[in-house]
């Protein structure tokens, strides 16, 4: 039983894909909302994000979604899944938009991939990092259950996360640099890729999230 899944909506972009994917893998009820009362009743929270980080953060703060997120993590102690800019917003700061202070819920930085970016063979790499890349699993986290190591997930981002505490690293992706693809801390799992756009691998991860009890 997944119970109620609240997808935190701070008005930046379309959240239907995330909601439909959660429904597709069997969520009992999915609410796309920023209503504090509804989120308080939720059994799980998804913190998504697309677009430019400065605009995202100003809406997150204006709608007090940061407080709702903190409440889910530390008061409700329910499973939380952060996706893409949702993950980036939780870091300390980002180099995007000439430097932005983020929510500092996970100490670490969001860095630009660099220009020009090159792989180990000196081949030029395009930015944004757009498409299907292999995720190296660093832990045996319940959200990886049934997903083979080095499965491909869909990424689209120009900035990447580097957490200070390397013990949080649950998955990484190589793209000129080794970027954090998934971080895990207590009842939080945060991913840079888009599980809702990652076909079977992504749907398995979402299904695992619905079944997760929030323990590592």
């Amino acid at each position, binding site marked *: 039983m997944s119970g109620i899944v609240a997808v935190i909506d701070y008005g930046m*972009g*379309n959240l*239907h*894909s995330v909601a*439909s*994917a959660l429904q*597709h893998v069997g969520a009992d009820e999915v609410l796309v909302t920023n209503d504090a009362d509804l989120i308080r009743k939720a059994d799980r929270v998804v913190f998504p994000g*697309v*677009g*430019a980080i400065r605009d995202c953060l100003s809406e997150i703060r204006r709608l007090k979604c940061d407080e709702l997120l903190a409440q889910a993590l530390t008061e409700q102690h329910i499973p939380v899944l952060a996706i893409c800019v949702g993950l980036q917003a939780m870091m300390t700061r980002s180099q995007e938009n000439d430097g932005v202070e983020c929510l500092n819920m996970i100490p670490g930085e969001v860095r630009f991939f660099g*220009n*020009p970016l090159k*792989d180990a063979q000196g081949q030029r*790499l*395009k*930015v*944004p*990092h*757009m*498409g*299907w*890349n*292999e995720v190296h699993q660093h832990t045996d986290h319940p959200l990886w259950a049934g997903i083979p190591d*080095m499965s*491909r997930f*869909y990424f*689209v*981002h*120009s900035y990447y996360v580097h957490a200070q505490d390397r013990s949080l690293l649950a998955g990484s992706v*190589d*793209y000129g640099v080794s970027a954090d693809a998934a971080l895990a801390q207590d009842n939080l799992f945060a991913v840079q890729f888009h599980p*809702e*756009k*990652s*076909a079977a691998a*992504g*749907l398995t991860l979402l299904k695992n999230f619905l079944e997760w009890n929030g323990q590592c």
Partner: protein
Amino acid sequence: MALAKRIIPCLDVDNGRVVKGVNFVDIRDAGDPVEIAMRYNEQGADEVCFLDITASHEGRETTVHTVEQIAEHVFIPLTVGGGIRSIEDIRTMLNAGADKVSINTAAIHNPELVRESAQRFGSQCIVVAIDAKRVDDVDGLPRWEIFTHGGRKPTGINAVEWAVKMADLGAGEILLTSMDRDGTRNGFELGVTRAITDAVEIPVIASGGVGTLDHLVDGVILGGADAVLAASIFHFGEYSVPQAKAYMAEHGIEVRR
């Protein structure tokens, strides 16, 4: 191991129906874009692209509904192009469930639309489509110019310079179609593909002219494309997406399997 090169089947949609149909043996309705998109998803396509060729306003509302249905059933990225003219059109398609929109003629009439939409919705969802045709210089050097109206109307704009400008304005990706090759099944125009992939930092999707699996390989290896888009070779069941991927992999190209 690295980022996979993408294979993107493209569907032409008119009033909510796929035109020219699709020739899959076991498909119930060859004109239903939702069923076809689901089939490509099952085959392992990396994205699906919809080109809306609907002329009427009412028809476009049907397209929005189609996009909504696809987004409910298909969990790979979906790009919608055709008739995107304003911020409002982009918002409508993104809200319906498109992951990216492709802007073509409107970018030529109003390049600021690219900047404004990239700022508002993020570069990741703004694809600029370029229809290029070869018009050699007097000295015989190849030059490619942007054409509109299905390749009939020249604009005088240099396609390579235009791609660089679009990337600077915030486009997240270029969808490059050779109007000399589109529909010919003679392969991509590799000259312009290479020239544009070398000129911009953002990913480039090659389109126009695919008739064989070798053409897909050439687009990536010789053209330098990050993704290859094709229609008829997949629609008519000549090749499946897994066959195309197996062939590309044999030629040393990273694909998702």
